[in-house]
């Protein structure tokens, strides 16, 4: 008996197994790849449209928009000033276009994650069966190295914006699903009982009580999702997604130190801006839960 290695499959068998999986998947992608691409076309159009819109907008308008969003999100002057200044600096160092591309990608993927993630989170919260089904999937999505799922995505959809978007979403969707589920499950049972005592239907309970009370948690999920989407843009640029991430990738492969740092810092700046705005907004959402009169 050999104790160096545990029993292993015969090499030839193993090779055949891998080959048959690869071939099977290749056949699958040959058969359905086009359909899938067509299915995602609207997404592509939307992304391209947003990118073009951003690029066509005069830069002062964009700065103004950033300032206004920062004000309505955070209601704090230093967040407004900081955001506008960061955008100006990014433009000054020649990363304006790449930044807008990244902005478009992150916005669309966040939107996609919210639209898909919140309903999934709600379903999870309403049924323990659904939860026990989805939790392991989320665990896999969060722990599997992202390079690994780039492979099937590329095989199916090739290289480009849509596969990039999808891999960003796979990476960024788990927190919003988890936190929606958690937020709804944490809603005070007694408040829910009160709604029931007044004859609220299941929908009235969901939209009138559970979702509004879960909003602070759901919002924390949105915040996390944005952060993870930003973190993923570098990896997604390996499969042809444009933007700041692509410049970082170029810098790594060519050892351009300054280029790498500048684009890296631009991503950091975007992350901080998104984070401060959305976090402050989330905090304002739950202000009524504490004491203290607002306004």
């Amino acid at each position, binding site marked *: 008996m050999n104790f160096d290695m545990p029993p292993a499959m015969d090499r030839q068998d193993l090779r055949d197994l891998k080959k048959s999986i690869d071939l099977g998947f290749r056949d699958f992608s040959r058969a359905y790849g086009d359909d899938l691409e067509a299915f995602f076309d609207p997404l592509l159009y939307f992304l391209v449209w947003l990118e073009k819109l951003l690029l066509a907008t005069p830069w002062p308008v964009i700065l103004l928009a950033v300032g206004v969003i920062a004000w309505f999100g955070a209601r704090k002057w230093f967040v407004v000033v900081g955001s506008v200044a960061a955008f100006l600096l990014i433009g000054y160092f020649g990363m304006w276009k790449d930044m807008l591309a990244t902005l478009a990608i992150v916005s669309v993927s966040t939107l996609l994650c919210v639209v898909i993630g919140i309903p999934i989170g709600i379903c999870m919260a309403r049924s323990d069966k659904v939860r026990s089904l989805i939790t392991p999937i989320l665990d896999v999505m969060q722990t599997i190295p992202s390079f690994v799922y780039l492979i099937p995505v590329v095989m199916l959809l090739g290289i480009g914006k849509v596969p990039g978007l999808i891999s960003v979403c796979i990476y960024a969707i788990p927190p919003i699903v988890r936190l929606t589920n958690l937020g709804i499950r944490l809603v005070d049972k007694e408040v829910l009982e*009160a709604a029931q*005592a*007044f*004859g*609220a239907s299941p929908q009235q309970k969901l939209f009138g009580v559970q979702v509004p009370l879960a909003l602070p948690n759901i919002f924390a999920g949105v915040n996390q999702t944005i952060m993870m989407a930003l973190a993923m843009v570098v990896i997604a640029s390996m499969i042809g997604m444009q933007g700041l991430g692509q410049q970082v990738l170029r810098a790594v492969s060519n050892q351009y130190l300054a280029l790498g740092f500048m684009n890296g810092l631009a991503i950091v700046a975007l992350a901080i801006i998104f984070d401060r705005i959305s976090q402050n907004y989330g905090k304002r959402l739950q202000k*009524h839960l504490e004491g203290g*009169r607002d306004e």
Partner: protein
Amino acid sequence: MSDAAVQIRQVYKIFGPNPKSMVKHVKNGISKQDLMDLHGHVLGLKNVNIDVRTKEIQVIMGLSGSGKSTLIRHINRLIDPTSGEILINGQNILNMTKAELRTFRRFSISMVFQKFSLLPHRTVAANVAYGMEIQKLEKRTVSERCQKWIDRVGLTGFESYYPAQLSGGMQQRVGLARALATDADILLMDEPFSALDPLIRTDMQDVLLSLQSELHKTIIFITHDLDEALRIGDDIAILRDGSLVQKGSPQNIILNPLNNYVAAFTKDINRGRVLYIESVMDDGIANDAIKIQHDTVIDDALQVLIQNNTTYANVVKNRNIIGQVSLNNLIASLSRPKVSGDSPV
């Protein structure tokens, strides 16, 4: 049909994985402890029968864990019984479909909770409006009625506050307004004032009593405070380990406690301040005596006797003499009654 608005008929409630199969053990008289130890089920209610008269305040008392909350939640089916019937105005609510039950909860019954259970994301006004929104009332009606009830419970000016910005007493006023605003005839109150300071509690009792003198709702009111029960209740039911041990008028409960458990509730009460002379008077008419109203409490009656320098008086009700009291019998009735033998508490 009788004048009972709510009839609870042979209700059993057992908590656990297989409650139906436990009913026979409970009917055979197994104790709460044995049911837990031998079968792993919790006895919630055991053969409870209560008729609540319409337009009266029915108080339900009992120690913690005696099943008060469980019982009151049967009346709007937040909890379903393991066996038994619950009739509201003659209709068995257990036969209702889900939709019928929702309609019943929207229009016929409302509830006030021990921990207020307000919707924290809604303002005072929006909380009071909640039941009416679910009733799908017109917006104008909602805001009119909303304001009326906010004013009525004394919260004028706080309409746009959030619950977390209010004191406990004020929050429960919101809870009361929210429950009353739906115009339901039956009001369930699960220890509504227990979480409040004694002074605020008395305030809230006054609010409730003055509302009740206008509204004449059928109210089921839970408390573990006998003073509160005596002040508010037209009738008191006492629960122990899920069973009803005694039910009757406040005077009757104090004068004739059935066993030590009930007596323990009444022992600290100031009998002179709660017992009416009508409840302790003797038959017959005294000659030449002063007259005292039947609903005078013993303390006040003693005062009258002493002031008039006399030792006896006639008891009058509606200008008729219905009995007599003497100094001796009044003083004697201040002492606690003996309980007709029972296991100690």
